[in-house]
């Protein structure tokens, strides 16, 4: 492992150990003894470059994640959309207002008036109605807030219901698999999948949503929203590791060789060079049940101490886990089915870069799927788990398949949404995201 100069020298293992934790990147730079992490962050994040933003960008405090379904049958419409989206995202992330819309679908001609009032006589003459508002302007007056917009391609872009709509079916990368069913999944079909994804992250939730809303407006007639999820990350002012809704510190380090773990290399197609595969899982947490569980058991389940974040039996958050430690009876100090053990690269051989957000959608009626089978109004809150890797088969799938069966934490979590997207490499100004996928076809 290559120690970074601004980190404690001891190697660090966080939650989802080998993965690099929830706060993978930004808070690596914000070591605990730093006075104010946010001062170190720029106002805007770059858009053009070798990589899309929002993957190794230091985490912003809010996300609006949206999956779209393409409704067009025309390949050119998809190209036009991606070009429009690329240019719009470049504008928005630089802090500029959206460009005035030209050539957007307009309402049918009214026949006579710009904006008629009751009592106006009508004529059959055609005219141009006033354009729709289109820009919500909800980001007016707000700073750029480090907005990043990250685009992903789902399997449906390449083939949908057995149909090759855009001539791309033969170009679906092998790594863009159909995610398998995992033990315990309670996936809601409407909140899974998608032909295209947009991950908008910003330090202001309204700036993040504004970006997705604007892109959705631009997509009118070509793509429509399939599902969306907001999320947030509560960052302590002292720069220490944020806590997830279970109250545990979540996220410490990047994988030892982050670039190797995240970026697609020569094994991938041209348009994926410098890109990454995104797995998103909406994970509901049984928080009421968790709050009625002893802290000692929570810690045993996680494999870490709740307050300090240190591995069970150790002192410092960033100490190595010591998975081989046993107690006097020969039992493992960190339980065999503890979350941190099952997620660790030493156990799984898999590494991912985590960049997930807490989510909280209020309360609704649910029936818990473990004894004592509680039913009632419960929080629909938990983790919008997002991770990036060069290949999901050797990343998330390899890591999670055994975890889904064995992790003690599973009795407090339920996966309700899931998707896999191929996020193309970055582009230069004048190009559009995924351009070389279409050029080669």
């Amino acid at each position, binding site marked *: 492992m290559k120690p970074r100069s601004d980190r404690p020298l001891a190697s660090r293992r966080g939650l989802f150990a080998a993965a690099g934790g929830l706060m993978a990147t930004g808070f690596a730079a914000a070591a605990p003894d730093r006075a104010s992490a946010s001062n170190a962050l720029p106002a805007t994040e770059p858009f053009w470059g070798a990589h899309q933003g929002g993957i190794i960008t230091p985490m912003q405090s809010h996300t609006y994640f949206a999956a779209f379904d393409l409704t067009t049958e025309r390949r050119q419409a998809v190209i036009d959309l991606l070009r429009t989206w690329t240019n719009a995202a470049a504008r928005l992330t630089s802090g500029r207002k959206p460009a005035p819309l030209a050539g957007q679908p307009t309402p049918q001609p009214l026949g006579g008036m710009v*904006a*008629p009032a009751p009592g106006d006589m009508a004529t059959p003459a055609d005219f141009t109605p006033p354009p729709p508002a289109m820009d919500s302007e909800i980001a007016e007056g707000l700073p750029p807030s480090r907005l990043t917009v990250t685009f992903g391609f789902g399997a449906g872009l390449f083939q949908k219901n057995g149909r090759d709509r855009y001539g791309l079916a033969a170009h679906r990368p092998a790594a863009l698999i159909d995610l398998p069913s995992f033990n315990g999944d309670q996936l809601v079909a409407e909140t899974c999948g998608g032909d295209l994804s947009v991950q908008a992250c910003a330090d202001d939730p309204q700036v993040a949503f504004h970006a997705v809303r604007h892109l959705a407006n631009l997509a009118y007639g070509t793509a429509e929203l399939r599902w969306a999820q907001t999320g947030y990350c509560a960052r302590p002012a002292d720069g220490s590791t944020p806590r997830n809704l279970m109250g545990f510190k979540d996220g410490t380090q990047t994988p030892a060789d982050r670039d190797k773990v995240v970026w697609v290399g020569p094994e991938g197609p041209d348009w994926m060079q410098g890109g990454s595969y995104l797995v998103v899982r909406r994970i509901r947490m049984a928080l009421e049940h968790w709050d009625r569980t002893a802290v000692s058991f929570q810690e045993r389940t996680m494999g870490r101490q709740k307050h300090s974040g240190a591995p069970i039996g150790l002192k410092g958050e960033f100490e190595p886990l010591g998975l081989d430690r046993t107690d006097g009876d020969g039992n493992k100090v960190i339980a065999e089915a503890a979350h941190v053990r099952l997620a660790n690269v030493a156990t799984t051989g898999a590494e991912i870069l985590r960049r997930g957000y807490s989510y909280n959608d209020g309360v609704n009626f649910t029936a818990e799927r473990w004894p004592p089978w509680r039913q009632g109004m419960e929080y629909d809150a938990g983790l919008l788990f997002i991770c990036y890797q060069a290949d999901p088969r050797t990343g998330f799938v390899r890591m999670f398949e055994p975890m889904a069966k064995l992790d003690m934490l599973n009795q407090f979590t339920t996966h309700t949404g899931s998707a896999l997207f191929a996020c193309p490499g970055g582009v230069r100004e004048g190009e559009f995201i995924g351009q070389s996928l279409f050029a080669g076809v």
Partner: protein
Amino acid sequence: MTGANNRQQARNTRRRDHGPARPARLTALLTSMLVTAGAAQATEPRGFLETVHRHVTLTSTVPDNGDQNPYAVVVAPVSSGKIRQGDVLIDNFNNLGNLQGLGTTIVAYDPASKRTSLFAKLPRHPAYCPGGVGLTTAMTMLKSGWVIVGSTPSQDGTTRTRGDGCLLVLDANGQLVATWTGPDINGPWGNMAVLDQGTSATLFVSMAGFNLPGPDVRDPATGEPKLLHKATVLRLDLTIPQGQPPAIRSRTVIASGFGHRADQDVFLIGPTGLALAPDGTLYVSDAIGNRIVAIPQATTRTDSAGTGREVTANGLLQRPLALVLLPNGHLLTCNALNGQAVEIDPAENRQIYAQWINTNQAQSPPGSGDLFGLALRPDGKGFYYVADDMNTVVEAR
């Protein structure tokens, strides 16, 4: 005519982007222009619509039970029971949950007192009305005080669960006294036309339900809900014995073969307007055909005239709905696909002009889907119409 043109020109050159209110100063200017032009030329108006420009919302048509989507507008010809002569009766097609074919209420607006009251609330499933109650644009009040209204019901807001429906006869206190059904009564839909002679009456009702499937049953060629051609106009010759409810003496299909189909958004599309001229010609607004047709000898014929003779099609018509005969002999209809009313001269088979009466820009084009029922004011100088965007009834005067 010149006055009207000047007014039109003035409007066309003015950019209006501040919503429907017109500045008072400008109104005064326009009025003075019109008066001046009129004085100079003393030109007769080409039609009725140009004499009517004020649009005043009278009342909400939503009763306590929350019914939505007002359809029929009928002006009471007499005082009887709960009704005062001149009251405006409006029925509702949707229920509180905005599901179509489940409205059960008729409200009454008294223009003298400006008060609105509930005239009738029908039980959801009165005996003998197949499928229950969803009140449509088919409604009339007779001089004898009886109210007759059509039901084209559903269970889920779509034709997938529609019932054949019926005609319901109410007394002037809003109580159900009779239900008319039969193989010729299926989806009573458009505004009724009536020739009312006191102890007898001739009633015309369009029937748009026959064989209609749910809106998901598509024509593979077009992808649209399957288009049928079984809609009819039924003539009911009624006897109304003194003090007794009307009874059907004879029933005759006088027009048939009109297009109709289910619709995901507006339940069904079919012939929605009927207007009877003094010479016995019945005009029908054929929504599917986007046209007005004429059925000759409608009051006396014994057979179907098919879809009759086309009077005018397309042009300013955008799926015409309710139809009324104007004092000047013209027809007035309102569009489904924009918020305009269109005036037609049936003698010359031509459209005169159209006027914006609902300009709600929340729909595109403005007012699309907001118009349905129409009724002439008793003095012939204005008309009442519903605004389905706001669940209100409006007077144009």
